[in-house]
């Protein structure tokens, strides 16, 4: 659905040039739900704006929805839906007016636009708001209207820029459901950006981590976590068995960072779930009884920390607003 090679964008302001995106390669297959994760200013929005024809890349090539981005931007526009960070519905318009004009911009007739609008309103739970002015909608309703506008022409590829920023937790969870069902029930390919780790983690099939204009890691949430830091395991044993238990743990394949404290042995393994049976057998054969065991999956924040040497939160505070 998306294939980009060496996509880059340099902004010039006041004689200084800023490389917002420095050569991004990415591939998104049909039916995938892919997340673009990174701090503010990492280049997420700039990349998205290039892929959606709003910004011309300084260099690089891309095909989006099977159409060449540089040669035929209008062709790309017909294929994709795009929902910007702050949305794009006008406060002074009625909901139905926005739905109708959006549909007609994509070449639908008035009747088709209204019918498709009603269908989407049903799917996104914004029925009955047709005659309301956009400015009277709640934040969650407006965001869903913006998404409905992006889907009016039933695109097979949708770009969502920070879809849940600024929403309350309930609207957020609700929107996640809608985004999932887009893919699960309608086979739509979704490419979204987020700077929320939990969002990328729970929503996306695959994550691209971007920092300072470059993709620094990619994979499924589980792959990323496994590849980067492994799982933490904490085993609690009687105090007299701590030394023996630590020795057993150190002999597990891939185990590292073994530490002991009081009656707990901690260590890291690439995959905690596959290491546990081996650990249990080994402890059992040495006659060590254990009182508890815990596996801690690393968070995406750990991933970000390992890939870039700083945590996502630090990056947020330190990063400018170049996106």
């Amino acid at each position: 659905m998306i294939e980009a090679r060496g996509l880059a964008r340099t902004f010039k302001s006041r004689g200084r040039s800023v490389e917002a995106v420095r050569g991004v390669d990415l591939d998104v297959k049909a039916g995938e739900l892919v997340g673009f994760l990174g701090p503010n200013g990492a280049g997420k929005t700039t990349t998205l704006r290039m892929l959606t024809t709003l910004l011309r890349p300084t260099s690089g090539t891309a095909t989006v929805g099977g159409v060449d981005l540089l040669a035929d931007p209008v062709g790309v526009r017909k294929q994709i839906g795009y929902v910007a960070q702050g949305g794009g519905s006008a406060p002074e318009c009625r909901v139905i007016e926005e739905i109708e004009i959006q549909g007609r911009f994509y070449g639908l007739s008035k009747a088709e636009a209204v019918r498709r609008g009603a269908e989407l309103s049903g799917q996104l739970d914004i029925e009955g708001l047709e005659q309301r002015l956009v400015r009277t909608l709640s934040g969650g309703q407006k965001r869903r209207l913006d998404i409905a506008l992006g889907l009016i022409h039933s695109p097979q590829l949708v770009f969502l820029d920070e879809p849940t920023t600024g929403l309350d937790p309930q609207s957020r969870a609700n929107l996640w459901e809608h985004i999932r069902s887009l893919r699960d029930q309608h086979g739509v390919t979704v490419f979204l950006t987020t700077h929320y780790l939990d969002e990328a983690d729970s929503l996306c099939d695959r994550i691209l981590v971007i920092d300072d204009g470059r993709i620094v890691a990619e994979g499924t949430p589980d792959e990323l976590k496994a590849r980067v830091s492994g799982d933490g395991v904490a085993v609690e044993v009687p105090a007299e068995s701590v030394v023996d238990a630590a020795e057993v743990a150190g002999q597990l394949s891939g185990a590292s960072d073994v530490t002991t404290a009081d009656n707990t042995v901690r260590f890291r393994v690439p995959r905690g779930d596959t290491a546990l049976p081996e650990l249990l057998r080994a402890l059992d054969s040495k006659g060590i009884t254990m009182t508890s065991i815990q596996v801690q999956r690393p968070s995406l924040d750990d991933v970000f920390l390992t890939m870039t040497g700083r945590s996502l939160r630090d990056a947020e505070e330190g990063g400018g607003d170049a996106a």
Partner: protein
Amino acid sequence: MLRETWLVFRRHMAISLRNPAWVLIGIMQPLLYLLLFGPLMEKIVSSTPGFPPGDSWQILAPALLVQLGLFGSMFAGFALLADLRTGVVERMRVTPVSRLALLMGRVLHDTVQLLVQALLLLLVAYLVFGMRAPIAGVLLCLIMVMLLAVTLSSASYAMAMIVRSEDVFPALLTTISVPLLLLTGILIPITTELAPDWLYVLSRINPFAHVMDAERASFRGDYSADGLLTGSVVLFVITILSVWWGARTFQKENA
């Protein structure tokens, strides 16, 4: 393209019709000039040599139409800045809609709105102050005012698209509009008899001063080439230049 322009036009008309008060607020300023300044003109015009021919209302009414066209349409860019802020412009630019249609639909709306305001203003001048002018001259005058609206709203959108700041834009407008308005000779015509040479020369550089002369000529029923030709040609040229500028700005990939 025509269908899309019509869609954009209808959208903006629907917004204006929901808030018709804005149409009235737009003509408040020229209306006040008509009411509070117009009566002063009568004696001044008859006792001061150097005014163009015609009675005071025939001098003031077309001037207020030009003022309406200049000021009203020049502020059109504000609506675009609001749409840029709320993401409406970007949302539409990701659709396959022609970018020229996004501009022309707006310009068409501004022109129709200005026509309504101009008609209201003329109606008041006719009913309240007994202004009299030949129908053909008034119609010609209205056509010129509409072209003026096309010119200035296109230019305003181009400037708004380039400036992109709701803080800078009003300052820019004031910087441009006040000297432009003064050099057009709205309230007191800038003629060779009334103005010092340097001021007269300066006003001749201002294209709108020529348009002003043509409007006054048509308003008093003077359809001679002497009265109309320069102004019409100038108006025609600035309309084309301004629409071209607006179109180019709207079609830029990164605008």
